[in-house]
């Protein structure tokens, strides 16, 4: 029997990072009303500090930090682990959730006339629940524990979609729920088979025990299918555009920027952490093709939308496609796979920040103009200069123009695909950028043209500033130093290093 794992110094930070939002949910729910907003706003700085502390520890020790819950090591107990990518995602989640909380104060403050309102209470509790679920997903080390976290994420995200109660939002939420439930149950079936084949669900232990048997392949296929449905990878993307486009802007930003990344993160964990010892080339190629199809189809659909929020939602479908190019480009331990890995993670981060900023801006725009029809945006840029600056900068990152996080991501993807000799992968990357330029052009040209718009409402400066700050982060990611990419490698299993 292998040596049992123990808690590393600072491991308790991981438990605290999870328990903070969970306690927040309960503290918000009991008194209800305005307390929910206060609790949510107060806990975000602490969560951000915890995420930074985790990142600091990981960077200092150059090793993942581990906590065995209850002092009971796997396989019987559950372990939490934070490696480089966990730490980075924790920080990203804390920043975007904080931004969404500050942005949402305008819309989801409890009205003066009532003690408690439905939409406010739901929003503040579900926002914290999404944060809690993502935290567990980023640091969880046990596949069944991660299943419960996935369900937590679903139960938090669905009510946000239909929070304003319009029939089309209810239909979108229901469709989202059914896809998500299918995704989790398929994932759970894979978990059952993994346990039946290997007698553990702990990720590193599984990685040591898995063999390329039909049972393991079936389990991996079922889990992947479930996770893809939750990530909305083409062709199971149908639920995403109506759900993300109909939710209120603050919720859309979190859903598009973070929630879909949760299930993507688990797909990474599965193929790069549980199954690195298996010959996964074919699977990586299939995922890469699906991703490429998503890039093309999502972009073309985005080109055809009449509403700004729907266009941004379809752009999410396309940008998710890019994420899946990480599978062929970072597989194995070749010279280029480090570049592919950095590229994929950079794409996750750049898209999270840019997309959140764009949804924030689209929400401001819709409130200011009273509509979000692209054809009627004439002259809007002059009326809302800061909002359009944000959209333009965010779009820069989506298209992959320098300097931006999106550019770094796509540039490194191109490098990796040329270095690997599979230059075919450059085609979807380049085509996606061209098509993205097309749909961005569709927004910006009418907006910057001459025209008169009457503003129904002047957007709040603070909301514009929050959106702009996020888009700045997306741009700043383009200047990330090599040390940042080295940090992302911490804790990543290398196939050759395994027995």
């Amino acid at each position, binding site marked *: 029997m292998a040596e049992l794992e123990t808690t590393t110094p600072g491991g308790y930070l991981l438990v605290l990072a999870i328990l903070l939002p*969970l306690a927040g949910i309960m503290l918000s729910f009991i008194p209800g009303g305005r307390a929910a907003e206060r609790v949510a706003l107060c806990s975000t700085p602490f969560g951000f500090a915890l995420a930074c502390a985790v990142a600091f520890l990981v960077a200092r020790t150059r090793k993942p930090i581990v906590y065995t819950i209850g*002092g009971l090591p796997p*396989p019987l107990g559950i372990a939490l682990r934070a490696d480089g990518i966990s730490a980075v995602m924790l920080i990203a989640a804390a920043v975007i959730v904080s931004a969404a909380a500050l942005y949402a104060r305008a819309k989801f403050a409890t009205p003066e006339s009532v003690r*408690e309102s439905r939409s406010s209470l739901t929003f503040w509790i579900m926002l914290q629940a999404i944060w809690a679920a993502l935290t567990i997903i980023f640091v969880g080390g046990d596949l069944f524990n991660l299943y*419960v976290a996935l369900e937590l994420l679903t*139960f938090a995200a669905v009510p946000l979609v239909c929070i304003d109660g319009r029939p089309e939002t209810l239909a979108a939420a229901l469709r989202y729920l059914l896809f998500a439930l299918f995704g989790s149950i398929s994932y759970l079936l894979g978990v059952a088979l993994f346990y039946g084949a290997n007698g553990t669900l702990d990720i590193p232990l599984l990685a040591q025990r898995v063999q390329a048997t039909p049972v393991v392949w079936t389990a991996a296929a079922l889990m992947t299918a479930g996770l893809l449905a939750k990530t909305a990878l083409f062709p199971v993307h149908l639920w995403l555009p109506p759900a993300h486009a109909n939710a209120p802007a603050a919720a859309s930003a979190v859903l598009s920027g973070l929630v879909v990344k949760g299930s993507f993160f688990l797909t990474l964990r599965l193929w790069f952490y549980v199954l690195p010892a298996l010959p996964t080339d074919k699977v990586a190629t299939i995922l890469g093709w699906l991703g490429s199809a998503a890039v093309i189809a999502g972009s073309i659909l985005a080109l055809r939308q009449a509403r700004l929020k729907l266009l941004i939602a379809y752009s999410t479908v396309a940008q998710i496609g890019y994420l899946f190019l990480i599978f062929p480009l970072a597989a194995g331990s070749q010279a280029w796979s480090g570049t592919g890995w950095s590229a994929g993670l950079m794409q996750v981060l750049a898209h999270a920040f840019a997309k959140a900023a764009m949804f924030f801006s689209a929400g401001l725009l819709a409130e200011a103009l009273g509509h979000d029809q692209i054809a009627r945006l004439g002259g809007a840029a002059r009326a809302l200069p800061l909002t359009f600056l944000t959209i333009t900068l965010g779009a820069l990152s989506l298209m992959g123009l320098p300097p931006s996080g999106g550019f770094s991501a796509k540039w490194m993807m191109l490098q990796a695909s040329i270095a690997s000799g599979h230059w075919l992968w450059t085609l979807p990357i380049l085509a996606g950028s061209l098509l993205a330029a097309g749909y961005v052009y569709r927004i910006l040209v009418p907006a910057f043209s001459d025209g008169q718009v009457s503003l129904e409402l002047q957007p709040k400066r603070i909301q514009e500033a929050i959106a702009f700050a996020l888009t700045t982060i997306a741009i700043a990611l383009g200047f990330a130093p090599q040390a940042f990419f080295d940090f992302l490698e911490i804790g990543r299993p290398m196939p050759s290093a395994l027995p």
Partner: protein
Amino acid sequence: MSLLPYLDIGLAVLIVAVAIWTIAAPDLFAAVVGYVAYGLLLAFVWIRLYAPDVALTEAAVGGGVTGVVLITAGKRLGALKNIAPEVQPGLPFKILTGVLAALVASAVCGAILMLPEPPPSLAPEAAAAASGAGAGLGNPITAVLMSYRSFDTMLEKIVLILAVIGVWSVSTDKAWGGAPPPFRQPKPYAPMVFLAQLLAPVGILIGIHIFWTGANAPGGAFQGGALLAAMWMITMMARLLEPPRVDAQWLRLALVAGPAVFLITGLTGEFVAGSFFAYPPSLAKPIILFIEAFMLLSIAAALPMLVAGPPSERPDQ
């Protein structure tokens, strides 16, 4: 020689047949009723798999409470006159779906038949650890739920709270703060009232008994809580009690009690036992029962609220 294998095969055939009925029944309500029968049949399978704890849960929740939710929904949807006629998918699509489903089913069948021998298991570890973290717990499942995987159990209770808030959140703004609609039509019916008055005290007693024995025998907070929940629902169906308002302070405290006590004891574990969610071995059993008592309360509050649905716009009587 034994009859059991034939009974097993008969049960399997019956279950598959009822499952086919729930998928293929022409009528929505008939399908729902089929599903409830199916849930009860499943409980037998769990008994045959030596899983009485799961059988209890499946009968109470999978068959019982889920059945109530689905039947209520089926009835209300059946009563709506203006539901659009269902668009039936074309034959090629049906065949394609059938092939896909058959492929998945046979892949899973194959995987089950190819599971390794000897089967990997954590039973030896769980049995060996019974003297430590799960000290004094004769029921290994309770030990797993409350000790080794207590983190999952706490999260699952949070999922229940979120589900309650999620269900409430699909109400209208005007109805917020009100109570869910009553469980039944206006006039309480005498036999129903009689049943509730007689059954509720007995049921509460049995629920607490199941919770208490759960430390050593099949049962536990979840199964006991489900029974308490059923008793509350029966009294609400008899209109002896009405569903509480969603902003009632006691209701929210009851809903949160289980996970909150779990979280607080988990935090104190760091100071008294050296790790979050650890228990000092000498006190493990009383602490676990203490947490479970609050979880019992939360489950008994959450399940009826999930069945009752969102607050309604009708003013409270």
